C-alpha cells in the first residue's frame, strides 16, 4: 500500500510494514487476514481494501485517539 510508506516518510512517528501474507501464515492468522490488502494500524484499527488518502488518514488518526470511557 503506497500510502502507508508515504506516511512513514512524512512523519517520524509512523512506520509502515508491508507483509507478504502467504509467507507469514502465523502472523496472518493472528491478524485474521482473509482478504487482501488488509491494513492494521496500532493493532487497533483495521480495514480491508484500498482507501482514498483522506479516509486512510482518518483511520490513522482513530488509531492514536485516547481510548474512550
Amino acid at each position: 500500500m503506497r500510502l502507508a510508506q508515504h506516511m512513514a516518510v512524512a512523519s517520524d512517528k509512523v512506520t509502515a510494514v508491508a507483509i507478504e501474507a502467504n509467507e507469514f501464515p502465523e502472523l496472518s492468522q493472528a491478524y485474521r487476514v482473509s482478504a487482501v490488502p488488509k491494513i492494521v494500524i496500532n493493532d487497533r484499527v483495521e480495514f480491508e481494501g484500498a482507501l482514498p488518502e483522506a479516509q486512510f488518514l482518518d483511520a490513522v488518526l482513530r488509531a492514536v485517539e485516547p481510548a474512550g470511557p
Partner: protein
Amino acid sequence: MPILAERDQEAVRKEFQRIQGPVKLVVFSQELVAGDMCRQNEQLVREVAELDERITVEVLNPQIDRARAEAYGVEDVPAIVVEGARDYGIRFLGVPHGYEFSNLIDSIIVASSGEAQLSDETKSSLAGLTGEVSIKVFSTPT
C-alpha cells in the same frame, strides 16, 4: 537466472530516473530459518540495486547482527529496510513480488527524496501526531 526480465529491468530503470539521493536497502536473511525465501529476496534486492548506482545493499543476519536487527525492529526473515537520508520506518516482510514489488520501487523513490506524495492536509495532520503509529499492510503477490 535473473528474477527480473529484461522488460521489467527497463521499466524499473525508467522509474529510477526519479531517484533524488542515495538509498540503502538493508536485507535480513537467515539461511536456517527460510533459506529459499531469503536467497530469493536477496537476489531480487541485488538485481534492483544494480539498476541504479545510488542504491546500495547491506545484508545482515538477525541471529548474528542482533543489535542491528533490534535497532531496526526486525524479528522475521526475509525482511528489507528501505533507508534514505534516514530510516523512515519502511519495512518489507517476505519476498516483494507482484504488487509489493511496485510498492518497493515506489518506496525506494520516496525514501530517496524524503518527500512524501501526500496532500498538504494529510501532511499537516501527520505533523501533529503525538503518538506512535504502526501500519501493517498484508498483501499477496496476485
